[in-house]
């Protein structure tokens, strides 16, 4: 099932997602994004060279977590148009990531594509680690498919 544009209003809050991060989460995420830098798999490098308390989640894998959080909500017809990140802190093994999201606006563009703008926040405890502004296309009716848009009909 997919969320339909008409059902989405400014202020709508997405269901939160909570996830307990382990060393495996960090290493798997780094290798899945082909990021071989040692601070994402080598405890001694991270603590002794980077001066942080452990290995930490890499940025491209955080993008994958944000994508998963948004498309869990939209369903497969939801099509990401744009993501803008602000990284403020690092996520370590032992942390519990908490994702929340709120719809900040909706519009139908000149090409007839329905868009929702979201602010998604990744927190650990009370601390904001990353914020992500997301623009995602939603079907304007149950038969609409944003993935069918190409060229001038897709304006992310």
């Amino acid at each position: 099932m997919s969320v339909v544009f008409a059902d989405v209003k400014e202020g709508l809050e997405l269901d939160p997602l909570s996830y307990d991060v382990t060393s495996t989460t960090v290493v798997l995420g780094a290798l899945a994004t082909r990021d071989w830098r040692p601070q994402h798999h080598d405890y001694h490098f991270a603590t002794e060279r980077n001066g942080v308390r452990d290995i930490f989640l890499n940025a491209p894998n955080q993008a994958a977590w944000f994508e998963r959080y948004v498309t869990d909500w939209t369903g497969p017809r939801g099509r990401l148009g744009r993501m803008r990140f602000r990284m403020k802190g690092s996520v370590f093994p032992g942390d519990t990531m908490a994702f929340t999201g709120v719809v900040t606006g909706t519009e139908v563009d000149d090409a007839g594509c329905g868009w929702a703008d979201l602010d998604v926040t990744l927190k650990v405890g009370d601390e904001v680690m990353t914020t992500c502004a997301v623009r995602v296309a939603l079907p304007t009716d149950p038969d609409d498919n944003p993935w069918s848009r190409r060229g001038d009909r897709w304006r992310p």
Partner: protein
Amino acid sequence: MSSLPGDVAELIGQVQYEETGEFPVERGYIWTAASSVENGNPLFWDNAVAAELTGGPIAPPSMLSTWFRPHHWAPGRTKQALPLQVHFDMKERFELPEAVMSDNSLTFYEPVRPGDVLSTRQVLRSVSEEKTTKLGTGRFWEIDVEYRNQSGDLVGVESWTGFGYRR
């Protein structure tokens, strides 16, 4: 009156570092990536849903840069290639030893599909006047990394804002 040196001003808007990916987009990596964040979107796992909605399997859009990270080792290579070379060029040009990335955005166009061979190119969009922040004194620059498939279709643009500085 701009204080931007002429050689840097000439680089703005110029295409640099065009490169083709080291391997075709493949489903094994797509599944590893989806699995790493427990992403159950059927577009990546269910061929029937992918056929109906996207005309066949696609890669998660957020994987864009994954297809361009170089192998950790390759035969004959003596030096590891640096992604976002323009960023390092600016650090060197202005002799700024430190740098941070303050902003990163991804814009998605045509879906990326298994078998695609992607190419990338870097474009310096702007360089600021010298500024002083709490980190130090230096310059901000904006770099776009454009990604295209083998047909020349734009599949995505990654935009970075960097700040190179000295303490």
